[in-house]
Each structure stands twice: as structure tokens, then as C-alpha cells.
């Protein structure tokens, strides 16, 4: 989900936060950005982020990147300028987002004190101008913006009227331009209870309140979809996985009229079987996602606390009470120990962990420790990559997808899920996906393989289309070419002749039959004159011309057959001789 982080760089951001002398709005916003980056880093640094700072102008500080350090550095250098102009920023982001097309879910996170702006560039002024002009080209960029998700982190206290008015205007903008978005605001203090004075130590806006907003944002907009991947009954062949980017719901039109329904994928993804990637080809997909192993992980603590507890927990979280796989897990652990416990027994004993980890144990980061834990994703990915196969998965009722190892240009390999549009007939060459089974399901003697062949299309059969004169002429030419080479090409000659005759009859093009008969007679006359031709040839040509003219032959079932001559044709009409040229002709037609 490519995201633009937009920081309000108006002068008003330099105000100190009421009741928090240590913070200005800007310094708080920087803290917020840092915390957002921390959260996204913990989630695997998957998001592409860009940073803009806006006042009357909107400046791109960092272009889209997964290197969050760049952003951390850049935010320190942002100098507040004049007044805030939200709309300039929104318009700029549309052009910045352009490279992402429409396949990605695009997001904006705006850190602002919700200044309403001044004069002609204010939100109010925009709303006034915009009313009633929705369709005009001037506002076309709002159409693109409507696909994004806008998140406003609103910095302010509810007691501040400027803030509440500004926030209301922001909401009004979202509503009137039909933009998808949300304002994240700190919860108002319970003012009624103990007759507060705002100056009395802490106000509602502070670091904790802000971090809460960021966490709400991450929860609502940056959460990977968690599902269970099941590939067999053994518990190690079943595992929770994360899908990123999170799959969008599919809007399924109602079968026979009515409202469309939104469909989400099921909580459990079932592997149904495996297919060669070469059999799948490149079918149209609804969306693509990474499949990442989901490990139990401590939440990134706000003060980056020790993660040692998290690292230790998997080893003996063997809660015997509700773990049905206790015995198997214990066995695995014992065998692992058996293999790895070596001379340095005491050390290993003490740490109770893998020997090869022991060496780096004390320096291993949580990420490194995670890399050492076997996961179903990596195993399945490896096997699919090895065999060049994909796993067909069931995502819902009559809804399929397939998972495979995808290597990019840099040879970095990943486990990817392609979600197909719902339906079981979405890949024509695989047939009905619900009818896929295993070779053992076939009846004895039955064979089956991909691709499932479609009915013949016009281009894969020898269609006759004479709309252009040239194609008619070339068909006639072909007959004549064969005519000259009789008796060798007698079979070809009659095959082509009958093909033309049938087509002419279907089109009611009887004129062609007469013309063809004439042409054959002429050909015959010319060949005789040159004297370079066998009597067989002339006989066949005359025979063909006569047959073409017979009205009795204008019937669907009739076929013109070669003139039977006692001696010569007996060889020619033997099945073998007849079959070979016929096959050759079929192939020859398309290429000659």
C-alpha cells in the first residue's frame, strides 16, 4: 500500500501544545511519524513510503522507498513555512501517486493541526467554488483522489475552537468530494467531571495520546490479513500466514439482477492440489499478494523494550493443558537436542536452544531468531520452486487462487498468492476448477491432461471467407496448382475442389461453380496444347468440370470423387496412399 506521509509545515505548527511545554505541534508530529515508521518497520518494512511537506507549496522530500531511514533523516530538516494549503498538497499527491496505477491501494497519512487555511487557498473557499462543478475538468483530479484512502492525524485539543472548526472543515471536504478517509482525533478530556483548567498539567494531546492514534491508524489501514494455510492433516502442514497487501473484497454482481455483494476470502485457505506452472500460464488475476509466515511476536513496545521474553517463549510454550500437539512438539525438541547437543553441553543446556544459535545467541536480533524457526511457507515455497509448480487453493465458495514461488529480476524469490476472480470457470484452459482431481480419480483406461481443449475456433479450422476477393482468388489458384500436378496431387486437387464447392453452396454462390468448371476446362485445353501432361490429368479435369456443373451435386451430402480408372487408381486409392496426402493437405493449407 504505497503511502504518502504529508507533514503540515505551516507556521502554526510551531505553537507549543497547550499544557505541554516540552512539545510544539511540529515536534509532536515528528514523534508521530517516527512511531508510524517504527510500527511499519516491525511489520516487515513492506510499505513504500514517500514524504511531502506542505504549506502554500507542496514539496516532495523523499520519493517512494522502503528505506525508512531516509524519511527519519528528512523530517528533521523540515522548516516551517507560511500557511497551510491542504488542497495543493492533495493535488500534488495525485500526480505523485500516478506511477502506481489503479491496481494498488493508495494511502495518505496527513499530520496536521487542521488549519483551515486562509483566503482563496482555504478549504472553505475551495468548497464554495467546487459546489456544482463536480464534473468539470478542473476538478478531474479529485476522481483519482477518491480511490485513495486519506488518513488525517489531527493534532489539537478540543478546547481549541480553531482546531475543532478546522477539523470539521476537513471532514466536510471528505464528504463533499466523496473521498474515502478518516480523521484520527485525540479523545476529548472528560471536562465535566473535575472542572478542569487546561493549563493544569497534562492536556489531552501528548505523546501517549498521539501514539494511540498512530496505533489505531495501523490497526485500521496497515494490517496484513491473517489466514490459516492448510495443506494436510499433520499439524506442521497447517500454519497461520499473513497476506500482504491485504486482499480487497471482491464486488460480485448479483447473478440475476439486484445488488452486488462484497465477498471476502475465507479465514482458512485450503490447498486442493498442485499444478505445473506451465499448465497455468498467465491467467487474469484479481490481485496478487505475498504470503508471509506469521510468527507469534511481541508488539513493538513503545520504549523498544527487551524482546528476550518473546524469544524464549516459543521453546516451551508447551502448555500441556490445551496443546494437542504437545507430544509431537516435545519429540521434535528432543530430537533437535539429540542432534545438536555436542561437547559444549553445559552451554547448550543452559540456554536450552539450538547449538548453532548458541554462538550468536546473545547478539541475535529477534528477526534473526525468526529466520531460524522453520515455517510452512518457506518449506512449501521451496518445494514449489523446485518442481516449478503452483498450489491451487480454495479461498471461498467457488473461489480459487494459486500460490507459487515468484522470482523477480534480481533473483529474489518470494511466496506469492494470485487471487483469481470468483468462479470455477475463470481459466478456460484448465476447465472447471471444481472438476480437478488426481490421476487416481480417473476411471481405468481414462486419461486426462492439460490444456482442456476448447471447441475449434474459426482460426483453427480451415474456414472459408471470401469477403476479400484475394482470398477467393487464392483458393481457386490453389486448386489449379494441384490440377497441374495430377496425377500426383489428385487427392489434393479433389480435397480443395470439394472445399470450395461446399463453401460456394453454403453461400449460394453457384456462379462460382460454373466459373470454376470453365477454368478447369481451359486449364485442360492449355495443358493438352503444351502436350506436357498425362492423359490421366486431362481425364480428371474434364470429369471434375462435368461434376461441378451437375445440379444433382448441389446437395449437402455429395462429394466429387476422382474418376475411377481401373489400373491407375487402384494404387492411388489404397488407404495408405490416400491418407498421407490428405494429412499433408490439411497442414499445407495453412502455410502454403
Amino acid at each position, binding site marked *: 500500500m504505497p503511502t504518502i506521509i504529508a507533514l503540515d509545515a505551516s507556521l502554526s505548527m510551531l505553537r507549543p501544545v497547550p499544557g505541554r511545554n516540552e512539545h510544539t505541534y511540529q515536534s509532536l508530529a515528528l514523534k508521530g511519524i517516527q512511531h508510524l515508521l517504527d510500527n511499519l518497520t516491525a511489520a516487515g518494512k513492506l510499505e513504500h513510503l514517500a514524504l511531502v511537506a506542505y504549506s502554500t507549496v507542496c514539496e516532495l522530500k523523499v520519493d517512494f522507498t522502503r528505506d525508512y531511514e531516509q524519511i527519519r533523516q528528512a523530517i528533521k530538516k523540515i522548516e516551517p513555512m507560511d500557511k497551510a494549503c491542504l488542497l495543493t498538497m492533495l493535488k500534488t499527491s495525485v500526480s505523485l501517486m500516478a506511477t502506481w496505477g489503479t*491496481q494498488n491501494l493508495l494511502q495518505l497519512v496527513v499530520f496536521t493541526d487542521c488549519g483551515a487555511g486562509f483566503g482563496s487557498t482555504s478549504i472553505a473557499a475551495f468548497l464554495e467554488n467546487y459546489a456544482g462543478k463536480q464534473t468539470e475538468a478542473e476538478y478531474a483530479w479529485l476522481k483519482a483522489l477518491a480511490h485513495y484512502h486519506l488518513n488525517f492525524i489531527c493534532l489539537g485539543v478540543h478546547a481549541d475552537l480553531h482546531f475543532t472548526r478546522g477539523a470539521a472543515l476537513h471532514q466536510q471536504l471528505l464528504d463533499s468530494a466523496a473521498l474515502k478517509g478518516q480523521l484520527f482525533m485525540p479523545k476529548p478530556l472528560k471536562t465535566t467531571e473535575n472542572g478542569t483548567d487546561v493549563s493544569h498539567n497534562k492536556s489531552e494531546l501528548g505523546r501517549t495520546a498521539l501514539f494511540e492514534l498512530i496505533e489505531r491508524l495501523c490497526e485500521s489501514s496497515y494490517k496484513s490479513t491473517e489466514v490459516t494455510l492448510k495443506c494436510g492433516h499433520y499439524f506442521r502442514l497447517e500454519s497461520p500466514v499473513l497476506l500482504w497487501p491485504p486482499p480487497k473484497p471482491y464486488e460480485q454482481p448479483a447473478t440475476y439482477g439486484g445488488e452486488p455483494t462484497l465477498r471476502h476470502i475465507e479465514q482458512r485457505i485450503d490447498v486442493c492440489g498442485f499444478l505445473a506452472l506451465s499448465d497455468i500460464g498467465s491467467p487474469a488475476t484479481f490481485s496478487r499478494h505475498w504470503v508471509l509466515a506469521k510468527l507469534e511476536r511481541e508488539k513493538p513496545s513503545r520504549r523498544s523494550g527487551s524482546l528476550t521474553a518473546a524469544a524464549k517463549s516459543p521453546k516451551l510454550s508447551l502448555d500441556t493443558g490445551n496443546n494437542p500437539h504437545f507430544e509431537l512438539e516435545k519429540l521434535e525438541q528432543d530430537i533437535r537436542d539429540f542432534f545438536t547437543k555436542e561437547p559444549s553441553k553445559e552451554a547448550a543446556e543452559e540456554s536450552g536452544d539450538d547449538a548453532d544459535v548458541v554462538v550468536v545467541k546473545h547478539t541475535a536480533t529477534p528477526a534473526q531468531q525468526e529466520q531460524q524457526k522453520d515455517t510452512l511457507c518457506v518449506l512449501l515455497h521451496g518445494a514449489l520452486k523446485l518442481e516449478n509448480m503452483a498450489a491451487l487453493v480454495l479461498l471461498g465458495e467457488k473461489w480459487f487462487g494459486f500460490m507459487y514461488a515468484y522470482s523477480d529480476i534480481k533473483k529474489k524469490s518470494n511466496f506469492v498468492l494470485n487471487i483469481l476472480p470468483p468462479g470455477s470457470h475463470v481459466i478456460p484452459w484448465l476447465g472447471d476448477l471444481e472438476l480437478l482431481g488426481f490421476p487416481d480419480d480417473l476411471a481405468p483406461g481414462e486419461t*486426462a491432461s492439460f490444456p482442456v481443449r476448447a471447441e475449434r475456433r474459426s482460426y483453427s479450422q480451415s474456414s472459408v471467407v471470401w469477403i476479400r476477393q484475394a482470398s477467393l482468388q487464392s483458393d481457386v489458384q490453389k486448386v489449379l496448382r494441384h490440377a497441374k500436378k495430377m496425377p500426383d496431387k489428385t487427392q489434393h486437387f479433389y480435397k480443395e475442389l470439394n472445399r470450395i464447392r461446399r463453401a460456394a453452396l453454403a453461400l449460394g454462390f453457384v456462379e462460382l461453380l460454373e466459373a470454376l468448371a470453365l477454368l478447369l476446362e481451359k486449364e485442360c485445353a492449355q495443358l493438352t496444347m503444351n502436350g506436357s501432361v498425362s492423359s490421366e490429368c486431362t481425364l480428371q479435369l474434364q470429369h471434375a468440370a462435368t461434376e461441378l456443373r451437375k445440379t444433382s451435386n448441389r446437395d449437402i451430402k455429395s462429394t466429387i470423387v476422382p474418376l475411377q480408372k481401373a489400373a491407375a487408381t487402384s494404387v492411388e486409392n489404397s488407404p495408405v496412399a490416400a491418407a498421407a496426402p490428405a494429412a499433408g493437405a490439411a497442414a499445407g493449407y495453412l502455410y502454403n
Partner: protein
Amino acid sequence: MFERNQKTIFVLDHTRYFSISSEQYISMDYLKGKPLPESPASSGSTPVAQTQLSKSLWTCAVESSIEYCRIVWDLFPGKKHVRFIVSDTAAHIVNTWSPSTQNMSHVSNAMMMVSVPSRSIPQSSDYSVIHGLRAAIEALAEPTDDQVQAAQAGCTKISNKGRVICITSARDNTSMKSLEDIFNTVLLQQNALAAPPGKKGLLIDHCHLVILNIVPLGIESLVTNRNLLEISPLLDVEIHTVNAPDISDKLLHLIMGHYDLASTTVTNIPMKEEQNANSSANYDVEILHERAAHTKVCGPDFTLPTSIKGGTSYETVTLKWCTPRGCGSADLQPCVGQYNVTPVDVTSRPSSCLINFLLNGRSVLLEVPRKTGTKTTSHMLSARGGEIFVHSLSIARSAMDEAPSINDGPGGRVSDYRIPELGQLLKMSRMVPLKAKPKSRISPGEHLWRRMPRYFPRTTNVTILFNLERQLTWLPHFLHLLVKEDMDKQEEVRCQQHIHELYKSASRGEMLPFSNTNNMRPKASKSKDQYRLFYRELEQLIQLNVQTPRHKNLLESLQSLRAAYGDVAGKSEAGVAHLRSYTESPLSPERLEPSSVGSTNSSSSLLKASKRRMSSSGQRSLLDMISNAERNQSSKRLDFSGRLCTPVGQTAKLYPDFGNKDKDAITPSLLQANLKDESIRS
């Protein structure tokens, strides 16, 4: 759901007028290459000019309407329907909505029987296109298979729209007007019939009537062209007057709008010259497909370049052929849409060259220039199962670009995954297309899972068994037998033998032959551990595969062996008990409790006994020994009460007193009597 282009009906005028020539002459003389030397009048038939010929109006009408449905059926196989009705003294139905008649060969065979209208028939008012139009409206009221299905699915309001394309020839605007009026009236009548009391056929929601008024070349028509006009809420009519030879072009234009098609011209296709195979030239091929194939490919910084081909008035998108670089159709492209294609000119040489290239299994990427000057492949052509598709590729930047490798993620640094083994399993579970759903299948997932092993450690460092598979030659077969769903007596005996062999080598203190290649070779001091783990793993494997009493037998002998080996996992006892509650049914025989003092004694004594016997009586088979030991063992415990009170030879009934609590279940006398026999069987 049912759009207007779902149903199209061609009404072909088969009156005498259509037998006249289109006045466009096709020369056949040029075929000779050189002019025929003035032949002496030997052949008798002198008129040389006869090698010129022209199509009749009828031929023009038939060939262009067949071309229309060729495109429809190529692009929307099974989805869009076209019917033909021929009209002279009556309406002749050429085909129906049934899929078996919705194909080219059916239509052309039927047309063979219709043939060109005869010139000799008298001009009469009986001959009219009106019959055909009436029949067309009736045909619209007939449901297609899909509509029948919708009705069966309980859909009450089935939308039913259609299009009638009438190829006729009218004298003037007045007669055209009356044609319209009659059509409108009949439409209303038909709907009246379909209304509740009659319920004859489907109600027609809307009809689009396209009238093609055709005249021979060079003739002026008195009928004026008219764009789409709403005659009534039910009926839109448009009228086009065309010269007969141009009717195909006209229909090609119309079909683009009727089915929302777009044209793509693949340019710069290198092809060998027909005459000279050594030189090659570049050709263009124009193809048709759904417009979405263009609109789905999106990205703001580029637009698809369009041009207008000579003689046409629609736009075609020109995309450049990319010479395929060993790019088989196997390469998975990020594809956002796939659509059937068909060439505009199916018989031309460039078209058939491209088609054959694709049908032979190669795919072609198509290039589009970007604003920035670079080029991107926006589409791909490929054929599968004898059908050619255009794939719209995703060309915008993707959030998934520049992926971190899976090796940097969780589990990425583990090096001993059992990937080759899983690979074997994948190959064994490769799917094939079936004719019908397999009977035994509950769900697609379940169908696979049954084939997958019930025990499959993910890595080699957590398994003893699969580490030894290569070294112990008997092991693979043994493991194979263990997981067999239908293990027979003989196989059970084999397994028992193996288990016993294992016990023997354990008692001899032999090291298990771990391979030297991996650095997992354990120390000699752990020789005892290795067997313990081996047994434990074997036990788990069987536990997970318990299907038959035979498996249970094996499990028991293994468990007693474990006990004999002194493998008393005291601390995991709770877990074992827990596990048992999962895996055992009430029918399971009571298990040995190796932890209890008594049984430990007994099992060790059992082993002693068996050892003794082994040395003394070489004649006895292993089975005898094992089963004897088993018998001794099990005679010490109580059999399942249900079996005890059932006479020998009969099947014990489960919960015989269910719902009858007050009755006493066990008769003590029977218990004693049956004890011995039953324990042997178990």
C-alpha cells in the same frame, strides 16, 4: 445479467430480388499468369469474359452475416447467441438458441440447403421479409439455456433484450416505415401473449432493430439512412443503405459497437516472404477483442497509440511485436485480464502465420511506447487449448516490486527443510481435469489432505526416521507399510518383524547408521537415546495413522517395547495421558502404564522371557515370540467389557445398554470364559 447482445437474430431476405448480381466483378483471368493464347474455337464455348464472375446479393448477405457470427462465436464462446431466419413465402428457421446449433458448421450446412433464391419464381406478395421478422420476434421470446436456468433458479424477473439485424431491400422510405410499424405491432402482440394469462414465452424488454437495405453496386437507393431512433419504449430502429459489396465492412463497424469490441493491430511481425524464403518482411495483423483488454491496462503516463486503417472508420490500437526471447507461454505474467481474440481477416497469410505461431505454443509480448520514451510490454498474445487470448498486463508500478527475499523472512535461514521430499509429494498430487467430481470427495481441500502424509516433519533435524531412510534399506518399505490404510495380516507380520529386529539391534547396542554427510552424527554415548527417540517417533507415526486394529496391534507392541527399553518419560506423563484422550476411542484396549511399578516389572520380565526363549528355541518364529509375549502381557489386564459379554464369534455391540442404565452390564461368569480367546486376538 442478460444484456442486449445476448441474443442476436439475423433475418435474411430470400426473395427473388436477392438473386440478382451485386455488380462487383471478380476477375479469374489473372490467375493464368500470362494471358491465354487465343485458343482456336476447339472448346466450343467462346466467351472468354465468363471467367469474370460476381456474387449475388444473397451471397453477399450470407457471407457477411456468417462473418459476423464467426467473430461473435470466436470471442464469446457459449455466451452470446446468434440465430438466422430466412424469409421468403414463410420464415425458415436455420438454428435455435441451443448450443449445438450455435456454431459455424451447423449454420453453413443449413445454408447449403437454402441456397440462392431462384430467378424463375414469379414476383408475388407471398414473398416477403415480414415472415422472417415475425419469426424473429417469436425467437426473441424463446428463452436461451441460461434464461431457462435463471428461471429454474427462481429468478422471477428475467431480463430479455435482443437485437434483430434484418438484411433486406426496400423500395423507398414509405415501405421501410411500414416495415417498422409492422415490427412494432408484432412486438406488442408478442408481449401481450407473454403476459400473465397466456405466459407464452418470455416478455421482451427491449429490441434493437438494425435494417440493412442493400442494393447492387452503382444503384441509388430511395431509402435514406437513419441513425438510432426510438420508435417506442420497446423498440429502437436504425436504417443503413449499403452497396452489396460493402455490407461486410458495415457489419464489422456495427459489431464493434454491438459487443463493445476494440481492434488491435500487431505491427512489425517479421515473416518469411511467400516467394522467397530467404528474405523476410514485416507485416501487420489486425485482431478483435473486447474493449476491456485496452481499458484494463492502465497507467497515467502512457496512452495506447491509435490509428485508423485505410477504408475503415474505427480506431485500432497499434502495438509492436516483440521478438520473443525464449519466452514460453509458461512464464507467468502479471495479468489483469484475458480475452479471446479473433483476426479480422482470418484467411490472410499474415493472420494465419501469426495464428500458427501462437497455436504452436509460443507467446508474443506486445510493446507500447511510454511518454518517457521507454517502452513497456502492455499485452501478451498466447494460445491455450486451441484458443488465442490477449492478456492485459499490469504495467503500473506494483507495491510488490522490489520484494525482500523469502530467505530474509521468518524461517528463511533454516537449511534443512525436507524440500525434496515435499517436492515428491507435490508431483504425486498433480491435478488433472476430470469429467465429473470424484464420488468420495467431500471438499477439494479434504480430497488432497487425505493423500498427504499424516506425519511429515518439516525439517530433517527433528526426525530420526527420515534421517535414516537412506541408510536403513528396510526402513522406507516399513514406513510405507505402516501408513497403509488397508494393512493386511501379512503386512502386519512384516511390521512386527521389523519392530523386533529393531529391538534386537538395540539390545546389541548397535549404533544407528546416521549418515556422515550432515554434521548431525551423534556421540556414542547417546546410543541409548537414539533408540528411545526412534521408538518415540515411530510410536507417534503409528498413532497418527491408526486406521485398523492391525495398526493398534503394532502400536501396542511398540509401546511395550518402549517400556521394555526403560523409556519412561515421567515428566511427560501428563502429556501422554492427554494425548491419549485425543487419539483413543473407548474401544481402544487399555494401555500399559510403564510408569507404574507393576507393569515396569512385568515388561522387563517379559523381555527377559522373550530373550530366554529366543536363545533356547530357535525354531519359533518371531511372530510366535511377539504374540506370545503380547498374550502374556495382555492376560494381565481386563479386556474391553463389551467384548467380554459377547459370545465368541459375534461382534460386540457398542453401548448395548445405552438409554437403559439400570441394567447391569457385565455378567461376571462370561467374563472369565472369554478372557483368554479375546486377549489373543487383540
